[in-house]
């Protein structure tokens, strides 16, 4: 059995997708439920862009702020999508189609910083 990998975009013309990678899991508030389509996760901000193309970024998610940078992948990632291959209406098994390529990612590898700090408790003066 063999599954063919095909690419309709041709070399150099592949759509380029992006990856934002962060430590841990992003969890919506329980009140939101399963309908998260269209929900804003956070705001990605480019704070500087150095000549080495490794710019600095912040990603603000709710009351959390992450700091990260753009990383070139040592080996590119291809995004493959399973397709039913058909010839004259006959299904001929599965094919994998290259739909995109990923060459960089924005990596947030440090733990998030809380944007709201706990209120300070004033010490009572000793009389």
């Amino acid at each position, binding site marked *: 059995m063999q599954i063919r990998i095909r690419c309709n975009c041709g070399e150099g013309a592949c759509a380029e997708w992006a990856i934002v990678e962060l430590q841990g899991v*992003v969890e919506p508030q329980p009140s939101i439920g399963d309908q998260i389509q269209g929900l804003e996760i956070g705001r990605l901000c480019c704070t500087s862009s150095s000549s080495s193309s490794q710019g600095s970024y912040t990603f603000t998610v709710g009351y959390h702020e992450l700091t990260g940078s753009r990383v070139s992948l040592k080996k590119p990632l*291809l995004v493959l999508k399973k397709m039913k291959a058909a010839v004259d209406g006959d299904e001929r098994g599965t094919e994998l189609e290259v739909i995109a390529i990923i060459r960089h990612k924005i990596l947030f590898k440090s733990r998030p910083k809380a944007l709201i700090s706990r209120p300070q408790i004033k010490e009572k003066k000793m009389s």
Partner: protein
Amino acid sequence: MEMEIEMVEPTEGWGGGGAEAVRSLAAGSSISVRYHSLFGSHDDMLLLEVDEKLLHDVLHHRVTIRGQPDEEAVLCTPSSTYAMKFVGTSNSVLLIPAGEPTPSSSNGTCNGSETNNKAVPDAVASVIKVAPGYMELTQAAPRLDKLKSLLNERPYRLEEDLENDVWFKRGLYRWQDLVEEIQASDQELRDGLRSLSAVEVDGYWRIVDGKTMDEILNMILTNSVLHEWPLNALSENEVVSILEADGFPGRIVLHCLETFGSKVENSGSNLWSLDEKRVCLHFAVQILGGGKMKLEIFMAKWMRSIPSGMHGDLKMLEGEVLYEKLGVENWIHAFSVSDLPSTPAERFAALFRERPKWEWKNLEPYIRDLHVPGLSSEGLLIKYTRRTQPNADVEPIFSAR
């Protein structure tokens, strides 16, 4: 990590800006990252890590994934085989597809203040999927053991009559059948067929039965004496026509010449030279077919069977026979490297079943054909054997790890 986020209208299509907006985000600018309107697990979508060398083959439709449902999949280029392994991650890998380009890649600044152009809609990076990991490729040896067992289901015999055979196609394999069954690249599959001395007969790849090959070789040798053909300059046309007249199929006669000889270079009239080592080895294996025998008896029989003009030497039998000393006598028996598994773990297991301790000079012929990408023969020995050497003057002994 929890977050308090509000519901917004789902963005249609791929969402404005998409991956392009993320990549071209200018210093001091920001972009909204949201769940795509089609966000989900998208199990039909996977990430495959490829190096630049492989990328060229993938983008030019030269790559397939091969294997049966019960086998671990391999990826094959025209000439190499790669094992596929899923590498999971505990990080959140947000996958952002390319989107429809918008007039501006962002409409926010990092401190949240509005940009001057209020008419420009907000560019959105829409997350289509959180990837659980990616498929990693590691160059691997082709899995050719199955090829041998498939072709051995039905070896070619002279007396077979396919036309009137009820089971005509059972146990017979065309090239495309082998491609579907064997986890190897096309080039490696061709090399595997060559190493098994397989031949294409009526569109099916076959191993020729040993008895048939022996019969044809003997006919060639007999005719070489009768017609005074030199064994290093056999005329293809003459050999084929004479043996065809005796009822041997021309294609199989030619295959016999290919198996036991090689074409003489710059010979205008298709001349073949029989290879001394291959011919002598054939007769040695034939003699040892009956099992273990005393070395001197074997040598006497072997020398008698070798065609005149050829000279047999025990060095020719490396990787084909094993010797053992029983009392004062030396014995010999057939033990062919070609009958051993091709995967290192199984190969070493078979070797140590045959003999618990090996000297390097005896072991080397049985592992020299093992090629594991990224692992030298020394590496293989370290991984699969235990080496003992009482002192520097003594040959090291290898036993099972």
